[in-house]
């Protein structure tokens, strides 16, 4: 007997995985792969794409969590509820061979207007490394973003006080120069940045790289992706980002990293539906000592996972994604993929 949910999953697996793979990932490494089972899609981390500055796999699994949210949302667009089983409670070194999550189609439920807005934001959602426009976030958006993060079992703390923002910026600036010189960090950047005309479908392309690293007072500095090569396209001046925020989870293991990634992607898509984008400051949290110092400077529950700045833009320089065939086991590809 034919099972409509199972037939839908196998017919639409390619679409679901392509939507999931639009997720943000550190350095656009896209450190994920998928396996398509008869009635499920399994998500795996791909440690061949893990950064040298991320030996524990935290950033890799956060990226996979973002892809998991993309997969859940794509399932909603088909009119089903996602049925997600989280599989990893193991130590990080065992992450690779085991699936992080298995997703099946649950009961049918019509897609909501809210979800449709998030789906429409998938193509233009991007990590904003260029200047923001001046002006605040649309009224009422920030509390909604906090709700999104809470619904994904994480906490978003907005850093309101100018003094806290200044202290954080000073701390991050002081450590950024040192981290930019770290050979592992430089090696990651050489491996994961792309010059103009590159046909690579991963990494950070020239059109998404600031021409010179931004070091403006009161702003969290971005990682230096250019390394003096003059490959970057983006201007680096511009008004300050109106919002600085930090994302916390209750613990600091693979489960919480997956939660952080899902919360992040949900927040980013909601923001992008209003043409608000984020700059992600992952660099300060890659070094344990700096991460501890940053945590001290902020008041938040649990483990600090992400620092982000939010602002408004009317344009989106999107980055490429690996083709579907690279993301799945060729022996188990869906029909027509």
């Amino acid at each position, binding site marked *: 007997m034919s099972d409509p949910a199972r037939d839908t999953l196998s017919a639409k697996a390619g679409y679901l995985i392509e939507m999931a793979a639009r997720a943000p990932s550190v350095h656009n490494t896209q450190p994920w792969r998928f396996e398509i089972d008869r009635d499920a899609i399994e998500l795996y981390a791909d440690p061949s794409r893990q950064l040298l500055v991320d030996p524990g796999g935290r950033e890799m699994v956060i990226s996979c969590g973002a892809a998991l949210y993309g997969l859940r949302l794509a399932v909603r667009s088909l009119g089903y509820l996602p049925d997600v089983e989280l599989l990893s409670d193991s130590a990080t070194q065992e992450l690779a061979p085991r699936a992080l999550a298995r997703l099946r189609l649950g009961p049918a439920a019509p897609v909501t207007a809210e979800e449709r807005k998030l789906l429409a934001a998938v193509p233009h959602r991007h990590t904003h490394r260029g200047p923001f426009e001046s002006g605040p976030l649309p009224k009422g958006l920030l509390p909604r973003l906090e709700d999104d993060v809470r619904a994904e079992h994480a906490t978003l703390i907005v850093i309101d006080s100018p003094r806290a923002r200044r202290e954080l910026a000073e701390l991050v600036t002081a450590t950024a120069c040192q981290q930019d010189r770290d050979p592992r960090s430089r090696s990651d950047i050489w491996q994961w940045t792309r010059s103009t005309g590159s*046909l690579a479908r991963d990494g950070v392309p020239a059109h998404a790289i600031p021409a010179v690293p931004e070091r403006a007072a009161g702003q969290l500095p971005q990682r230096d992706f250019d390394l003096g090569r003059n490959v970057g396209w983006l201007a680096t001046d511009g008004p300050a980002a109106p919002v600085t925020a930090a994302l916390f989870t209750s613990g600091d293991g693979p489960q919480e990293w997956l939660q952080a990634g899902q919360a992040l992607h949900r927040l980013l898509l909601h923001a992008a539906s209003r043409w608000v984008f984020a700059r992600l400051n992952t660099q300060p949290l890659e070094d344990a000592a700096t991460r501890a110092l940053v945590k001290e400077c902020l008041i938040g529950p649990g483990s600090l996972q992400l620092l982000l700045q939010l602002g408004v833009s009317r*344009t989106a320089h999107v980055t490429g994604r690996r083709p579907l065939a690279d993301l799945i086991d060729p022996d188990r590809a869906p029909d027509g993929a």
Partner: protein
Amino acid sequence: MPKRPAAARRELANFSDAAKQTLAEAISDVAGPGEDRQVRVRPLVVHGLPAQVLIAASADADLLVIGSRGHGGFAEALLGSVGQHCVQHAHCPVLITRGGEDV
């Protein structure tokens, strides 16, 4: 009722003329009248599926700029939007600009 081929051809020609007219007006709005233009604009009206046509045109382009169409209908959510196809398959960098509908 299927239309007769001659009628269908006439309708397509009318549609094509209307599209050219709309495009010329849009270019004038943005870049000014032809004689004052600082940039060279080459208008092109093409029949086809939007995503396919844009992806083909991206093969020898430095940048593909597309407008966001705001909230698509159900079919668009189901099949992926034109924007989604372009960001996935374009052969050059893609810049998406905010369309009037999402404001």
